[in-house]
């Protein structure tokens, strides 16, 4: 309702019961359900104008809509019904009925409304953060992984850095810089398109681009423990489904000169009856429960984040150097670590695999790929 600067018109739907009820103002005398327009002297500021309307004999509230001059909000005032003898009282220039209660109520309403809106907004921000973690980082990391793969492919196809003695995996040397890709990890059980470029280092920034190789641990094909960390949820989630891998599933690592095929070690419950049980599976050729110093190293386990022994050359025996094992007994292992449970960082899911077979890359046949890649 917009009025003049000092006049407000107030439109009231007022049920006027009996024709005889006196209704003061210019519309005095209207006898039915008509809107009654009253001229009310308004104020320069945004005061609400309280009116009392003579209504029915009982305490009926008559809802009024009064335009507040300062804002476009309409304020609904309950108006107590008067008695037949009390005429409509026309408010004076600065007249207010119960001013304190009204403005306090208004203040409370504004504060509550604002608080409510702020709380909802904060809740939405938290929700958006979850969306960010689960979806947006996947999209961002896909680009970073793509860049890392492109860089690595260019490096591998560059004839200048071709090694002098290709094909001998014992002599392939690795000197990747921090954050540099140096190998590709394929997990055929997850599909033929599952491949990630592995980068050197395990800082947060590096892990955003793809799985990271724990610095100081062995490289693919070497005796020791080739340990790799990867995100479970978000940032591309390379290791999301590690809990679905079974013993003897292939983990194929491609380097510039070699293919190294690892297979997941037997699970704890499979160790006892391996020779007659799972071990008879043709896929499990070359896989058997490890003994000697490696006793207890199984395919998958859940550990606390502080248990860094899982990436030691002999897992869970960080006190032992690889030299303490005779060269013939040294195993070349692969270890993959990620979060556990899926959406938490409370623990780590650790997967161990053992080196089973190596395929040197033949320069005459560059597109040859190991048959293990199509295992599925």
């Amino acid at each position, binding site marked *: 309702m917009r009025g003049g600067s000092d006049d407000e018109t107030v439109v009231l739907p007022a049920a006027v019961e009996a024709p005889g009820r006196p209704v003061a103002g210019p519309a005095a005398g209207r006898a039915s359900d008509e809107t009654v327009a009253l001229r009310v002297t308004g104020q320069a500021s945004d005061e609400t104008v309280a009116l009392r309307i003579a209504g029915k004999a009982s305490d009926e509230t008559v809802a009024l809509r009064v335009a507040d001059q300062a804002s476009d909000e309409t304020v609904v005032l309950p108006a107590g019904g008067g008695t037949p003898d009390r005429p409509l009282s026309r408010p004076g220039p600065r007249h207010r009925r119960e001013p304190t209660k009204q403005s306090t109520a208004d203040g409370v309403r504004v504060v509550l409304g604002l608080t409510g809106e702020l709380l909802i907004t904060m809740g939405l921000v938290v929700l958006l953060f979850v969306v960010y973690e689960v979806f947006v980082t996947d999209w961002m990391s896909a680009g970073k992984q793509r860049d890392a793969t492109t860089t690595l492919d260019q490096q591998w196809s560059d004839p200048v850095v071709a090694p002098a003695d290709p094909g001998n995996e014992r002599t392939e040397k690795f000197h990747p810089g921090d954050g540099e890709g140096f190998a590709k990890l394929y997990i055929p059980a997850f599909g033929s398109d599952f491949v990630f470029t592995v980068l050197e280092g395990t800082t947060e920034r590096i892990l955003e681009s793809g799985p990271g190789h724990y610095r100081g641990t062995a490289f693919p094909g070497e005796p020791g423990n080739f340990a790799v960390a990867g995100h479970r949820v978000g940032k591309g989630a390379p290791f999301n489904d590690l809990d679905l891998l079974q013993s003897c599933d292939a983990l194929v690592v491609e380097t510039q000169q070699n293919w190294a095929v690892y297979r997941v070690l037997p699970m704890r419950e499979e160790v006892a009856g391996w020779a007659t049980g799972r071990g008879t599976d043709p896929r499990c050729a070359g896989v058997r429960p490890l003994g000697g110093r490696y006793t207890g190293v199984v395919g998958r386990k859940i550990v606390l*984040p502080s248990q860094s022994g*899982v990436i030691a050359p002999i897992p869970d025996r960080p006190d032992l150097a690889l030299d303490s094992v005779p060269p013939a007994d040294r195993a070349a292992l692969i270890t993959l670590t990620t979060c556990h449970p899926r959406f*938490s960082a409370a623990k780590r899911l650790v997967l161990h695999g053992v080196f089973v077979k190596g395929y040197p890359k033949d320069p005459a046949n560059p597109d040859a790929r190991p048959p293990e890649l199509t295992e599925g």
Partner: protein
Amino acid sequence: MYALIWRLLPGPFAAKLAGAVLLIAAVLALLFFVVFPWVEPRLPFNDVTAS
């Protein structure tokens, strides 16, 4: 708060709607590309290493 923002947007309803959409997109971009990447390393949700 939101009513105030709506009121402050200029123009008829359609223009206000477009302005609101633009504001939301700007806030989302700010959150996803500036605020969340800054906050995220400071939260303990994403450690995957054994150390």
